């Protein structure tokens, strides 16, 4: 077995669900997504942590320029593949099969999954870039076709912004490629590119532009909140749950190891930006009236901390960062899932119009509470383990940075709990109709997410042990310089 199977299942699901309609299309898309969940769990479980790259597939692609179709996973990539595949069924379930052209929606979502999986698996720079861009087109069309009223301007801005970043990454890839003694795109040659420090700083600039726009770090975040708010919720889940992990993954897999000489110069600036984002996102989230926008800014804040943890590049920071990438995916998708349920039931996601949902929908309120608490890193939830490691890593780097980073937990707790209070507690005098509680499907989805949250919170070593050797080999790459 190799990971090509996972890619092909997603692609096949995408193609076939495009040709079916309505319910049939949904079932097929779900089947493909569930097969992929099983495959990803199998891959993650049977992965030999110390075995380096596994489940590889390699074939000639463009021999004349030395590009190979080379994919495989190590511990980190396997975790992200697992996260992507676990989240896909949740995303697909929130697409209404009665919507016009819903089959196209399923097809595009699965195509995007293939692109994102490709990013995590690629061992060849050109393939990496290709998958990076492949993930962009489907989400563009998804938001354009199914987004809210003001989507057009927002989505064009999003597309141009991210494209602007990624073409500079292409420039950097081309530059490294042209400087290699034997021109090829394999990641190992990119790791040993032999560029001078000045060259590495410029090359790193190109890579970083792509990554920080995707993550996003301030001041490159201006596309984010609008896009998250205007996108259909499934699109928001794809963007916040999975797509921004592409940027974080890029930082730890392509930026730092490829340009280690640039790191000492650039990282302090980047860590500063990331921590500024932690505060900025938190403060802005405090005053948001729209549930989705609030979650978008909270995501900006949490992701800033993950980015900072990755950029300090010590063992704690990295393992916390990788673990928290997984956790953040699960939590944020859960939160957007609940936000969409609320929107469905009440017709609004405007917080002042909400309240008292708990009275008629206790199960909904209870699951929302667990997700909220995980988001504010309460012990026993997965968020706690991740953020604790992140802060420990940042503390090793600089105490004051850790202090600022730690604020995220305090600010986060304030706005998240306030948001919970305003939406769920109180009286439900505002609504004309009775809010129904979770149905079986929703209960199942939220139940699974909560089980994952608690499981990782209680047994973080299940994940940490698997990713440990991959992270150690990453830290070794930079120590040799």
């Amino acid at each position, binding site marked *: 077995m190799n990971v090509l199977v996972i890619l092909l299942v997603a692609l096949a699901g995408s193609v076939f669900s495009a040709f079916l309609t309505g319910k049939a299309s949904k079932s097929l898309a779900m089947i493909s997504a569930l097969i992929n969940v099983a495959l990803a769990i199998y891959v993650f479980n049977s992965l030999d942590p110390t075995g380096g790259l596994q489940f590889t597939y390699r074939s000639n692609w463009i021999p004349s320029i030395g590009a190979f179709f080379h994919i495989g996973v190590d511990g980190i990539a396997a975790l992200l593949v697992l996260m992507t595949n676990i989240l896909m069924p949740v995303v697909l379930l929130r697409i209404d099969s009665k919507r016009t052209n819903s089959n196209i929606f399923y097809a595009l979502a699965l195509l995007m999954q293939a692109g994102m999986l490709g990013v995590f698996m690629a061992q060849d720079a050109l393939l990496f870039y290709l998958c990076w861009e492949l993930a962009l087109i489907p989400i563009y069309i998804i938001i354009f076709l199914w987004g809210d009223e003001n989507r057009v301007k927002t989505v064009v801005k999003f597309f*141009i912004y991210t494209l602007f970043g990624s073409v500079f990454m292409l420039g950097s890839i081309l530059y490294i490629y042209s400087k290699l003694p034997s021109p090829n795109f394999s990641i190992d040659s990119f790791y040993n590119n032999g560029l001078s420090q000045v060259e590495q700083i410029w090359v790193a600039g190109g890579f970083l532009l792509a990554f920080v726009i995707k993550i996003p770090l301030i001041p490159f975040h201006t596309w984010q909140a609008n896009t998250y708010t205007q996108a259909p919720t499934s699109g928001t889940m794809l963007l916040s749950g999975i797509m921004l992990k592409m940027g974080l993954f890029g930082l730890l897999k392509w930026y730092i190891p490829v340009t280690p000489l640039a790191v000492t110069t650039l990282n302090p600036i980047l860590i500063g930006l990331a921590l500024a984002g932690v505060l900025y996102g938190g403060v802005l989230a405090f005053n948001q009236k729209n549930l989705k926008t609030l979650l978008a800014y909270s995501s900006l804040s949490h992701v800033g901390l993950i980015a900072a943890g990755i950029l300090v590049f010590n063992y704690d920071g990295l393992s916390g960062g990788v673990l928290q990438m997984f956790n953040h995916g699960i939590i944020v998708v859960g939160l957007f899932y609940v936000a969409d349920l609320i929107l469905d039931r009440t017709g609004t996601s405007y917080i002042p119009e909400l309240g008292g949902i708990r009275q008629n929908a206790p199960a909904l309120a209870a699951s929302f509470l667990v997700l909220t608490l995980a988001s504010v890193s309460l012990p026993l939830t997965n968020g706690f383990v991740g953020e604790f490691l992140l802060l420990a890593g940042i503390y090793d780097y600089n105490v004051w940075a850790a202090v600022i980073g730690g604020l995220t937990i305090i600010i986060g707790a304030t706005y998240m709990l306030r948001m919970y209070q305003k939406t769920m507690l109180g009286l439900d005098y505002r609504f004309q109709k009775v809010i129904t509680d979770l149905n079986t499907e929703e209960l199942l989805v939220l139940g699974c997410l909560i089980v994952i949250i608690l499981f990782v919170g209680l047994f973080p070593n299940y994940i940490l042990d698997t990713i440990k050797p991959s992270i150690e080999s990453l830290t070794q790459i930079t120590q040799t310089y």
Partner: protein
Amino acid sequence: MAALIILSILGVLVLMMGLFHVKNKSLLVIIPVLLGMVYLNSNEWSKDAIWFSGMLKFDNFALAFSSLIIVVSVLWFILCHKHYTENFKAIEDTYALLLFSLVGGICLVSYHNLTMLFLGIEILSIPLYILAGSNRNNYLSNEASLKYFLMGAFASAIMLFGIAMIYGATNSFDLHEISLKSGQPYFPGLFYTGIALTLCGFLFKVGAAPFHFWVPDVYQGSPSLITGFMATIVKVSAFAALYRFLNLGIPGLDEIWINSIAIIAVLTLFVGNLSAIQQTDFKRLMAYSGISHAGYMLIAIMVNGEGAADALFFYATSYALTSVGAFAIFLNVKKYTGEYSIESLRGLVYSAPLQGVCLILLLFSMAGIPPLGGFFAKYFVLIGAVKSQHIYVVVFAVINTVIGAYYYLRVVNTAIASPAFHEKKIRNSALYEGVIVFVTLASLLLGILPGQLTGILN
């Protein structure tokens, strides 16, 4: 080589067929013959045949490019057929003119002597001066024809002047002889002025800034099929000719030429892309987008080293195929809506799902977004520029990719927006849609397996 003679005879033959009013049959003759030419070309591969005492040289470069323009013109003939048989009584004259123009194109991609270059340009252009005005009752078409003719004649004259100067400085029209003397020409001043004037003629033909002003008006005014023919065949063969001139005539390009081509390329990119943003007319948009593509191809020409021919061929192939597809879809929509605006494409994915999806893919390919052919086309051009240390050119080109994506995206937005501009279904014959699907699949294939088309010219 055989292609050139057989095509000339075929042109005359088709003209005669017009006497017998067999308008539906002529295509049955033209297309098999054209495809046969491609086969003959493949037989001559790597033979480097020289013809007419060094006038033409059918090396692999010439064979590849002539096959490309023949294949593209086959696609045009299929599209033309549907359109012309519905609207005109006599079409043989049009077909014959297109064939003659194609003959000129083949001369241009295979010349080895500057007289042949000039003849090729004239054979290519004169039929098109006529065809641009073939919509006789339309003022715009007349304007286009006159403008194209006056400007084209002017440019040809300048180029001829340049060729004469090169002859004066090197005592030869032959590219090989010129290349031998290009290091120490008898009269350097004359030689360099000659090259500059010849380049001006070329830049006019390919529509590079600042010689691009005729392009939008001529594209807009000419009948759409002829516009498409100009945008593909003329541009591709002119670029091949320019590459030949620089690569065979003055190899080891001086720094000054490289720099001037680099400046013109960047200027062309910005002029084309920035002007395209504001366009509302589809044909004018394609004109400006064509100008920007000319900028990328000029970068390939500027590199002029190892892999440059491949990069140019890949770009030309990808560009020609996507343009054929986009024009074909637009023509079909225009037949239903009678509009020339981009707005008339609104909701195409609903009124014609197949063509709508193809249009989106083609536009993404033009914008250079992977995994489509246009991405690798730009990629091969840029990698050449990086290897030859033209980092600034690459940075400008990369910025232009983003600007380009913006206006292509506007067309994509229009095509997927609802409600549809034309609410009833938009259809066409299976053959017509077959061409559209063919070019779309081809550009998808170029994007997934670009390796099949690279490295063949080295």
